[in-house]
């Protein structure tokens, strides 16, 4: 049989992405990236910006970003922490969907093949 090129699954690619942004080399401390991802306990005005990123990113304004920069957070740190906050919220959704799917599969039944 001809060997098929292996297609990486979502789970591996997902873990690679999350691991890279949380634990890889960056300009912001890993603890801050983790806090942004978990949406917990960052100082103002950074927390205000990340609240908007998580709940209604379309409301982010130039001023929100400017105030964070004025508070001494570098652009590279803003770049990283916004990515972590966005990925954190998307990840909580994704994990919720996957857990519900897994539970439905375990129940079995005619549709859960």
């Amino acid at each position, binding site marked *: 049989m001809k060997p098929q090129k292996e*297609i990486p699954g979502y789970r591996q690619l997902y873990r690679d992405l999350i691991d890279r942004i949380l634990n890889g080399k960056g300009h912001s401390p890993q603890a801050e990236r983790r806090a942004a991802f978990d949406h917990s306990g960052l100082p103002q005005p950074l927390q205000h910006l990340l609240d908007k990123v998580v709940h209604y990113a379309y409301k982010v304004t130039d001023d929100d970003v400017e105030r964070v920069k004025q508070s001494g957070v570098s652009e*590279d740190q803003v770049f990283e922490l*916004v990515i972590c906050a966005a990925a954190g919220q998307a990840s*909580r*959704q994704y994990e919720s969907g996957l857990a519900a799917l897994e539970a439905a599969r375990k129940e079995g039944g005619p549709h859960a093949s």
Partner: protein
Amino acid sequence: MRLEILNKGYALTTKMLFGIIRLVSGYPLPDAARLVFYRPDFYGLPMKRFTHRAMRGPSSWSVGDRELMAAYISRLNACTFCVKAHSAVSANAYKDRFKVDKVLADPETAPIAPPLRAMLALLGKLTTTHTVGTEDIRTLLAAGVTPPQVEDALAVCFAFNITNRLADAFGFFVPAPDAFDAGARYLLRRGYG
């Protein structure tokens, strides 16, 4: 974009590439594509790999279906850039703009098959309430969606709930419709990889 590093902070070879793309295509590279070139080892590369797998990898959802899901999720997140970009790709893939517009207006009455309608409803719930339960998945399976299809659609949902947030937080420039059409043709030819 709101960060100067995302406007001007690219490596010289990347800036040259942006110049060539602008010359050849007649359009500046859209901000969504520029973003993944900034420090690509931090975010761009792993994100492109995930997104390409979700949008173009093996799935029994068609490319048009997956792009429609992306457009619908983007609409619920009120992300203008991504709605325009992915409704254009979906309309091109289906060769049916009417269907895409109907879904974005109201998936309940749009001319689509029941499994896709049920899938969009679940993605909508997950995007707006951030959580779904076993009962939601049971409803979906009863509508004829298979477990692998659920997993494929959840991956689309993950990718676009990140991308929508970044588009609006970083302030992607929203160009004219012809630029989105050119971008859609590119994304259908080449994907996200």
